[in-house]
């Protein structure tokens, strides 16, 4: 009975939302803000990827809030999971392929992660995607060798440094008499690697912070073995 009502609820909700959505005119958004951003973003921020201009330029403080949410979630997860247990003796080592493949993949993953971060203002990609790839690169050796440890102190230092440099770049714009996190040093050379002023630096900070946070979280989840 309860299942039936729940199913009815979900189906009815979906139908109601579909009825509402069919009233929207698909494929022709008004784009008042979006259109304005599209016409002025290349001159104002110097980035060819307009999504990057929005994420770091027009809504930079939103990204800062997002980073703090991620930090809070990772910190809370670490707090909830509690202290680490030593499990080095109980987990088996990875096989030959996993070990050596992991060792060979590590530099490649680092390269592609930093490539994606540094080209975030030119092509699709950026700090979030690259940061996740960096986290995967640091987590891969842990899969192969369960006894290995990530240096949590180092991760915290990187994370804190990246987070504070994000805020410092924003404050630097403030001290120049601009708005908080307003892009600076904009040169009008669209499409160059060194362009778009402070946006690549901000994305580098975001990437390092996301990567360090997620790597710490993953190793935390992997290392604390349950005692049940």
């Amino acid at each position, binding site marked *: 009975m309860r299942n039936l009502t729940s199913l009815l*609820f979900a189906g009815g*909700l979906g139908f109601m*939302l579909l009825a509402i959505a069919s009233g929207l005119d698909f494929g022709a*958004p008004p784009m008042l803000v979006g259109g304005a951003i599209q016409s002025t973003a*290349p001159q104002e921020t110097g980035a060819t990827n307009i999504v990057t201009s929005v994420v770091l330029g027009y809504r930079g403080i939103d990204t800062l809030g997002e980073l703090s949410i991620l930090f809070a979630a990772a910190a809370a*997860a670490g707090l*909830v999971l*509690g202290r680490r247990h030593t499990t080095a003796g109980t987990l088996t080592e990875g096989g030959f392929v996993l070990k050596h493949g992991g060792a060979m993949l590590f530099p490649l993953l680092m390269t592609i992660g930093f490539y994606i971060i540094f080209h975030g203002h030119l092509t699709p990609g950026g700090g979030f995607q690259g940061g996740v790839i960096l986290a995967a690169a640091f987590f891969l050796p842990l899969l192969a060798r369960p006894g290995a440890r990530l240096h949590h102190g180092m991760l915290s230092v990187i994370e804190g440094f990246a987070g504070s440099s994000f805020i410092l770049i924003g404050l630097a714009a403030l001290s120049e008499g601009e708005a908080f996190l307003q892009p600076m040093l904009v040169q009008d050379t669209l499409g160059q690697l060194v362009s778009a002023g402070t946006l690549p630096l901000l994305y580098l900070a975001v990437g390092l912070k996301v990567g360090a946070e997620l790597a710490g979280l993953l190793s935390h989840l992997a290392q604390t073995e349950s*005692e049940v």
Partner: protein
Amino acid sequence: MMPEISLELILYTTALGLISIGLAGVVLSRHLFRMVLALVIAEAGANLMLVLAGYRWDAVAPILTTLGEHPPMVDPVPQAMVLTAIVIGVGIQALAVSILIRIRQRYGTLDRSQVAERMDAEIADTAGIPRDVSQESPLGERPLPSLPDSTVEIRGGHS
């Protein structure tokens, strides 16, 4: 020229179907881990819905490839919003999963009603009041515990 089954209908059905399936899973599933998975699906559907809100016919991705005049682009603002929403989602998911691990360590089960039952029992024990009879089991199954008068008052005040 529009095809007979419109793109619009397919995409909206996908997004809203994901949201409904996720919500149904949250309400229906008895296992807490399955509930987290359902939440992930509902979130994915909401993300697709946001991206659909910015789609534009015959437009290109919001990345400049030529200087000067550019073809019409899709709306970049919802895309930026979804970009951050996905990353927040994974943080929330990690938090939920670690809470599940603690629940498992504490109560030894992940069944929703059993966890609620044991949690109630633990709260009652800590507070020093008699345990509630489970709401899901019929009253006639076992005799009601004979309670001293004082505890009855506490229960009355409690509920």
